[in-house]
């Protein structure tokens, strides 16, 4: 029987999704939620203001409003902990604003109505008197600490990489290497530039939602999330109830992309309100609320890159000012991942990263697909292209000259990060071949010679990224339980939390491969903390390499247990018992007819094993992307006409699902390069709070993708698998940005900031033709 692993198994999830629809949090119709009230938040219209007074009496007096709450009512919750322990405690976001609001959209009051339609009516009855305060929207300006968002903290800097590194070194009892005094002093060529990696909205199509009910002092909380176990811990700390008194249930989730990792104030207000009024409470945010609240990326990057005129890179410094938004969240910690991946695929001898996260009066910064690594890749790939332009060398050649050579055992790279396996030169050659790079350059040359209005741009990116980094739970492990039932079906429990990634199919394939039980008789369950109390969820592209590996390990242990039982039953030696995949059972070697199925064993005695898999560390998928864009040099409009992607995420378990993950990532990468940006005016008012204003991409904005799969396995798990969910995003954005710049490079353009809107391209062309005093530091204009 050929192995099912590596084949394009169609998803077992699809049937329900295509016919009656999946069941997302708002769809849940559990009897315990009958008669639920609806929660609507009153949110701040000011980016920074003192709350003078809140008049809730019109709301209280309305017969259609069942309750209204402000911060003062939440007197039975603990002081809110910072969302991660490394952040200043005074910067923790309160459940409802206390005295000061710090971003447009911050929850200020909560109203409960019997019907969701009455919710917005009720919210309008709460009137809040604000006294505006000065607004900070630029993290670089905020870092000067002239206006403090949190006077008690004494600074606007919520996180400093140097401070974290020093603390980690001290805790480990090691000395930090001191930075070289003049890393660029000996370099023939030095290029310095300021880059902007713009704020993006993850914008999963299902926003945040929750439903809460208390039974006998225990909280039952349904929530759209990426990891029930972690959310339970956060809810516990925020509401002041021990985790064992909380049961988290994860319904189907309509996408997350990093925006649904932890509990947020609204989830806890929902749970708290249910306890206070003694009735179930449900909450579903609107898209506008989601676009005010769920953000990612947002780095101002200063790159300095130096080397020789023969293309050899010698030194690279990346300085990051991370926009933390109004209250530091996971986004403020991501520069640590950016630093780990700063030098990417290159053998640059001296690499330095400095980074700090600074609060501003904007939405709290979370994570978005790639979470710190696309930012690193965008910076180094732009830096390499700028360096190539400075020495008038082909960008493919500069990359070729500096790539780390292939390795099949872990190597420590200049940042100190230990990469597991990689073959960057092969990926680069593969993408250049697949795209017909010489042919593209020839076509570009023809169009330039003719002076065509529509010019061709070719952009490259060689990337490596870190997956399974354990940021979600600080560990590289996952657990799994596999149980065979008497009817021959199997239930698998996992600590991962799929929201589109197809684990129900992939993990079933893993079990089926070992036991011969068909995929459609294997059911995966997750996301209910009563069923799976431990787990690290789904994010950072960890699930197959850790969760899938756990499923395989557990299955192997179960098969071992079954072999022992079969041996006793059949009165033979265990060594003579082997798996019979076709029969979905075990047989005695060399004795036809002597065997027992797994189902039969399960019918006699519970056949169930729980196990854990621990990886030695994170893995490093890599690849090379080439984007071909057409730029209308008269209007500045750019369009991606081809995107060729070579991606290597180790051994491929299900190529269909892998391709889907890459496609989604590539589209998100194009979106950041050309279209999407969350913007605020100087008063902190959001300019992109609907899908009409926020340029979320449709099918017309992306091409069909050309994928080339490489498979360089990792030794870190028996599946040989690395993560792939974020690879597309990581590689595509710089490839497209580089392509747009390349399209107009012959007109003298060296850089265009993300997103490379038509207006930016047009201005860049004009600037290059008639340079003014404008700084070469990129532009914050749209």
């Amino acid at each position: 029987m050929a192995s099912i692993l590596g084949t394009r198994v169609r998803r077992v999830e699809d049937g329900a999704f295509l016919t009656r629809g999946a069941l997302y949090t708002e769809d849940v119709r559990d009897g315990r939620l009958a008669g639920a009230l609806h929660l609507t938040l009153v949110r701040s219209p000011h980016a920074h203001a003192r709350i003078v007074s809140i008049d809730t009496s019109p709301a209280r007096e309305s017969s259609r409003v069942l309750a209204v709450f402000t911060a003062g009512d939440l007197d039975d919750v603990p002081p809110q902990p910072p969302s991660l322990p490394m952040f200043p405690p005074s910067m923790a976001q309160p459940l409802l604003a206390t005295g000061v609001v710090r971003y447009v959209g911050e929850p200020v009051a909560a109203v409960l109505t019997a019907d969701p339609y009455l919710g917005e009516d009720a919210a309008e009855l709460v009137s809040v008197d604000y006294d505006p305060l000065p607004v900070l929207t630029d993290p670089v300006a905020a870092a000067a600490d002239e206006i403090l968002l949190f006077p008690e903290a004494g600074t606007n800097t919520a996180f400093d990489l140097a401070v974290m590194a020093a603390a980690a070194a001290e805790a480990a009892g090691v000395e930090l290497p001191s930075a070289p005094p003049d890393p660029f002093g000996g370099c023939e060529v030095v290029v310095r530039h300021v880059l902007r990696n713009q704020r993006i909205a993850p914008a999963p199509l299902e926003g945040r939602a929750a439903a809460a009910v208390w039974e006998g002092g225990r909280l039952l909380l349904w929530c759209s999330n990426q990891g029930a176990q972690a959310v339970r811990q956060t809810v516990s700390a925020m509401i002041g109830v021990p985790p064992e008194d909380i049961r988290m249930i994860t319904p189907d989730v309509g996408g997350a992309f990093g925006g649904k990792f932890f509990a947020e104030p609204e989830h806890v207000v929902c749970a708290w309100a249910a306890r206070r009024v003694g009735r179930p409470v449900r909450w579903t945010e609107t898209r506008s609320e989601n676009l005010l609240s769920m953000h990612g990326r947002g780095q101002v990057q200063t790159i300095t890159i130096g080397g020789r005129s023969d293309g050899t890179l010698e030194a690279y410094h990346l300085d990051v000012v991370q926009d933390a938004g109004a209250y530091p969240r996971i986004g403020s910690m991501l520069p640590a991942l950016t630093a780990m991946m700063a030098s990417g695929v290159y053998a640059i001898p001296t690499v330095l990263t400095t980074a700090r996260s600074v609060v501003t009066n904007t939405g709290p910064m979370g994570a978005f697909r790639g979470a710190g690594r696309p930012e690193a890749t965008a910076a180094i790939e732009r830096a390499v292209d700028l360096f190539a332009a400075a020495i008038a060398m082909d960008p493919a050649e500069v990359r070729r000259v500096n790539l780390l050579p292939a390795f099949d055992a872990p190597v420590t790279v200049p940042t100190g990060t230990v990469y597991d396996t990689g073959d960057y030169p092969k990926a680069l050659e593969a993408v250049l071949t697949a795209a017909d790079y010489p042919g593209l350059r020839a076509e570009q040359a023809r169009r330039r010679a003719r002076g065509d209005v529509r010019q061709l741009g070719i952009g490259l990116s060689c990337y490596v990224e870190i997956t399974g980094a354990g940021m979600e739970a600080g560990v590289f492990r996952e657990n799994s339980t596999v149980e065979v039932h008497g009817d021959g079906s199997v239930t698998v429990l996992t600590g991962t939390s799929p929201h589109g990634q197809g684990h129900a199919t992939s993990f079933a394939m893993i079990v089926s491969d070992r036991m011969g039980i068909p995929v459609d008789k294997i059911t995966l369950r997750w996301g209910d903390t009563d069923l799976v109390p431990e787990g690290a969820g789904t994010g950072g592209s960890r699930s197959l390499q850790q969760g899938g590996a756990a499923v395989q390990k557990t299955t192997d242990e179960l098969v071992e247990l079954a072999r022992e039982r079969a041996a006793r039953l059949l009165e033979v030696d265990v060594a003579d018992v082997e798996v019979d995949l076709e029969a979905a059972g075990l047989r005695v070697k060399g004795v036809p007819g002597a065997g027992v199925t797994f189902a039969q064993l399960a019918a006699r005695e519970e056949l169930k094993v729980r196990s854990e898999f621990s990886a030695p560390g994170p893995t490093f998928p890599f690849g090379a992307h080439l984007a071909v864009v057409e730029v209308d040099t008269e209007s500045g409009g750019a369009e991606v006409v081809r995107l060729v992607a070579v991606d290597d995420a180790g051994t491929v378990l299900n190529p269909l699902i892998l391709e889907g993950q890459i496609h989604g990532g590539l589209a998100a990468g194009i979106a950041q390069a050309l279209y999407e940006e969350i913007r605020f005016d100087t008063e902190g008012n959001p300019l992109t709070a609907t899908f009409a204003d926020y340029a979320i991409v449709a099918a017309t904005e992306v091409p069909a993708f050309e994928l080339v799969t490489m498979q360089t396995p990792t030794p870190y798990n028996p599946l040989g698998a690395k993560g792939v969910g974020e690879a597309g995003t990581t590689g595509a954005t710089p490839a497209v940005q580089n392509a747009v710049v390349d399209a107009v490079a012959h007109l003298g353009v060296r850089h265009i900031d993300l997103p490379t809107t038509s207006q930016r391209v047009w201005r860049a062309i004009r600037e290059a033709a008639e340079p003014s005093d404008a700084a070469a530091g990129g532009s914050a204009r749209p």
Partner: protein
Amino acid sequence: MKVRVTVNGRERVDDVEPRLLLVHYLRELCGLRAANVGCDTTSCGACTVHVDGEAVKSCTILAVQADGSSVETVESLAGADGALHPVQRAFHEHHALQCGFCTPGMVMAAVDLLRENPRPSEAEVRTGIVGNICRCTGYHNIVAAILAAARGGERALPVQSADEGRPA
């Protein structure tokens, strides 16, 4: 107000408030929860259903406006025996859904597109579904699925998925 609507072939009479959106009428009163609400600005298309045989965004239609009309949702597409509609089958075959939130609307938009244009080009498919946002798939497999459904199963999108070599 009383509204009389034929939903998936069955006529029903309900008493609704004027501001009830058709999408909520379908989800809450009719118990048909496949159509989803994904935005506030008629942008995302997750709520797409057919009214009087044409794809529309049910978040921007009042239930009272649908009085006297017939409405079809994705729940009506599969056969009584569970056999999938060709578009549903193509979505499954081509992995054109991941989280599933956009899927009911996307399928109804695709069915409507193919009814009007049975042999669309790739560009016509992309323009045809411009009113439906997907955040997961990058649209590649959705377009492939629609082209396949149009051509009765053969894969029409030039997807390369070359393998550079299996592990040793």
